């Protein structure tokens, strides 16, 4: 019998996703499912789905799921975690959901030090609704609501969520990774695994931002979109661990 190098994780449902070809959501779903498998927490994990492209995430994981209203996933996760501290709760949100309408919920959940995990997919655009400008859209980026490119004099600069949340004094694990190459995907897996491990140990609020591609709304081939992350996004959104509960922040 041959040895398995890579196989579909059990916590990932055996269905074809609705995501566009090359979308990073599938990669991050697979990583989350693998972490759930490896930690043996499938029976007590509850996810919170956002509004956005990943609104149907509840169909793709073999764990229980809530569907939160737009931006309110951290509030729903707070309720679930406080009512049942034995559960492992994770919220899965995009940038239009978390950094725009859900800004209050995420900042206060982080500030209260709620002991759940947030996976934040940052693809610098609203995906599901047709590629509108998000708070994380890059300067000059053309979207359907910024046809001349994002003008930072009018709209301000993109919001860097990891930097913003890591400025709060409350203990937490805050990291930014990317999904643009196999090496970075492996690092993303490490960060998400660390976040779930900290939650299993009941340590602190955990937040992992993943820079992701949106080939459809960026108007690029998937491989070009990965290059865009490397060339355009990384200089503005540095990768690394911004805060860890021991206080030893280290940038990769």
């Amino acid at each position, binding site marked *: 019998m*041959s040895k398995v*190098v*890579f196989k579909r994780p059990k916590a990932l449902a055996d269905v*074809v996703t609705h995501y566009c070809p090359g979308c990073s959501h599938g990669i991050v779903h697979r990583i989350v499912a693998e972490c759930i498998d490896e930690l043996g927490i499938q029976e007590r994990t509850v996810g919170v789905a956002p509004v956005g492209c990943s609104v149907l995430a509840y169909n793709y994981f073999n764990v229980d799921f809530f569907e939160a209203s737009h931006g309110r996933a951290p509030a729903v996760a707070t309720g679930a975690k406080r009512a049942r501290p034995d559960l492992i709760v994770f919220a899965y949100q995009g940038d239009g959901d978390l950094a725009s309408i859900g800004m209050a919920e995420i900042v206060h959940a982080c500030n209260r030090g709620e002991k759940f995990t947030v996976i934040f997919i940052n693809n610098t655009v609203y995906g599901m609704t047709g590629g509108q400008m998000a708070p994380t859209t890059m300067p000059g980026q053309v979207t359907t609501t910024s046809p001349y490119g994002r003008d930072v004099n009018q709209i301000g600069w993109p919001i860097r969520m990891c930097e913003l949340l890591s400025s709060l004094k409350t203990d937490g694990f805050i990291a930014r990774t990317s999904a643009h190459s*196999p090496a970075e995907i492996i690092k993303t897996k490490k960060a998400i695994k660390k976040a779930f491990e900290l939650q299993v140990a009941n340590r602190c609020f955990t937040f992992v931002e993943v820079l992701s591609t949106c080939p459809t709304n960026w108007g690029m081939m*998937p*491989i070009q979109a990965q290059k865009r992350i490397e060339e355009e996004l990384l200089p503005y959104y540095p990768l690394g661990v911004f805060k860890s509960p021991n206080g030893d922040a280290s940038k990769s």
Partner: protein
Amino acid sequence: MVEVETVTGVRIDKERCKGCELCIGACPKGVLAMSTKINSKGYFYAEAVHPENCIKCGLCAISCPDVAIEVYR
């Protein structure tokens, strides 16, 4: 499923593949290429054209957003 476990190298579920070509960029050995045929959804799918060069590193599988690839050693 028994058949799957005796296979070595990459195994691509062509019905899951959406033809994004990320696995081709991830492969260090040029094992994969796009097929000239389409699957039932109408996507050109990836296939192993040089399976003899495969080193079973699994980079194609971790890059696949649709988890269409399994790798056996």
